[in-house]
């Protein structure tokens, strides 16, 4: 296995995005519109209550949560989903089998390239613009700050695993497009990307809080603004790692099934 090939894929994915760098502006603009819409919503929600905080969260904290849970953590994973779906449907996925490399590792490497590109060209600029126009809060504490970084890592991994699994499901379902839509709805609700789990009814929050989606947006963002105490952070991290292991196992399993299908049925 040529390990050096994988960073090269990351660089290549990044470079490929440069070819479409004029799309960056629409990306930034889209995310800004989205953010300002949310800021308007939260501002009006907070203006209807007498106190300066709702469920112990202030408006600036809520805006910070919205930025983290949205553009920062729940970034544009659909490219990966589309790439896998297209490769499966067109049969181009066989081309990857012709090379001495592991397809899931290749997917991850190019996903990282796309992530870095979006981070530099969309996420960071949007965060800076929001910080200077509306204002953002710093992490609740040094501990919460570092915990956020660890959870960000986990969030990236979870989003990758969920997307890759879904993408490979195209082998059996052949309809990655409707899946994308379905997945997006589920994710938006259960990841806490728009409404944090603490606003959910108790039973739904309990369910959503234990599903892997919550590690994509909810936990990292909630930890950043200090909604979880250190003990809860640790528990969430351990459960998150367990989900990570389960999903990783599932991805490798589904890829083995897909590969088997590919070499026996030819697609």
């Amino acid at each position: 296995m040529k390990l050096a090939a994988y960073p090269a894929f990351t660089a290549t994915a990044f470079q490929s995005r440069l070819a479409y760098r004029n799309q960056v502006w629409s990306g930034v603009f889209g995310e800004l519109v989205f953010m300002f819409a949310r800021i308007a919503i939260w501002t009006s929600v907070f203006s209807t209550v007498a106190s300066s905080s709702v469920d112990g969260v202030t408006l600036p904290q809520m805006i910070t949560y919205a930025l983290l849970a949205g553009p920062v953590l729940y970034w544009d994973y659909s490219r990966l989903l589309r790439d896998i779906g297209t490769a499966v449907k067109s049969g181009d996925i066989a081309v990857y089998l012709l090379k001495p490399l592991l397809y899931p590792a290749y997917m991850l490497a190019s996903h990282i390239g796309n992530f870095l590109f979006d981070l530099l060209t969309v996420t960071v600029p949007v965060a800076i613009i929001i910080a200077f126009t509306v204002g953002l809060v710093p992490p609740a504490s040094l501990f919460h700050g570092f915990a956020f970084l660890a959870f960000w890592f986990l969030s990236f991994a979870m989003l990758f695993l969920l997307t890759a699994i879904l993408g490979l499901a195209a082998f059996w379902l052949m309809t990655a497009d409707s899946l994308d839509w379905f997945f997006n709805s589920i994710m938006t609700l259960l990841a806490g990307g728009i409404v944090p789990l603490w606003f959910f009814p108790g039973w739904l929050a309990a369910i959503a809080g234990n599903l892997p989606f919550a590690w994509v947006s909810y936990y990292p963002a909630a930890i950043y603004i200090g909604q979880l105490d250190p003990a809860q952070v640790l528990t969430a991290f351990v459960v998150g790692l367990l989900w990570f292991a389960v999903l990783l196992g599932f991805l490798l399993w589904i890829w083995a099934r897909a590969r088997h299908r590919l070499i026996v049925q030819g697609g």
Partner: protein
Amino acid sequence: MAIISASSVEKVFRQPKRQAGFGGAIRSLFSREFTEIRAVDGISFAIEPGEAVGYLGPNGAGKSTMIKMMTGILVPSSGTVEVLGREPHSHRITNAAEIGVVFGQRSQLWWDLPVRDSFELNRHIYDIPAPRFADNLARLTAMLDMAFYIDRPVRQLSLGQRMRAEIAMALLHDPKILFLDEPTIGLDVVAKDTVRKFLAEVNRERGTTIILTTHDLVDIEEICPRLIMVDDGKLLFDGELKHLRTALGSRRRLKLEFGTDPGPITLKTAALVTDEGAAKHFLLESEQTSILDVLTELGSGHDLKDVKLEEPDIEEVIRTFYRNKAQTGAAP
């Protein structure tokens, strides 16, 4: 030692029977009914290192299926395929490192990047030492005349330019075997010619074993001394191109021209097909028959002015062969 061997290879695809309409689509989800397609049907051959073999057959003959089995991305339903002494699909990664593959209808280049970047990526994938990579790149760029477009994004290239780049990319890591599935499909005459000359040269100069599928006979005439011909998944012919005629039972034509009409002539070595009086057309009875045999039998005393032997056009032979088969429903 054969570098590639196939023995009694079969590939049967099972496709779920599809019914029409939405209800049918739902029903076929649960149905266990399958149609079987026998894409490769009991094929055996052995290829020695350094050979260039053309795998010829009409559309749907099972050529791509065979290439996929040799490159390890498809498993045979029965029989065995060995490439470089290994079963390709169970040693996919090791096998992949030692072969080069070009699919005429699938690109392996990165669409949005300059050709050079795709090459560079292959350097990492195949772990090619930098000096060897530089050497190969320079040589391939010159041979395939790629210098003027190597820094252009792949999406801006013509099909001919892209195909040259695909072939170069498959050779950068000095594979022992180069597999090409319809490398000339859709190319114009000039591009076809460049590709053919190049492949013949790679085979001759570097000793790279080449297997290429095609339905264009010229590819084989110019690149491959050996021809494997398939149809309907079955092997029809394996041997040198020049022996194909005999194998398919088509005979050479002999034209004898006389100063004056010698009257009817019957010979044992050649059968008269058209008699124009002073010009007579014969079909030679066997591949072993030489003109001398015919002339000896004819004897002297005729006012013979000219003798012309016509090799049947291979393209024509194959066309006739397929046509006969379609009419009679069976191979002759």
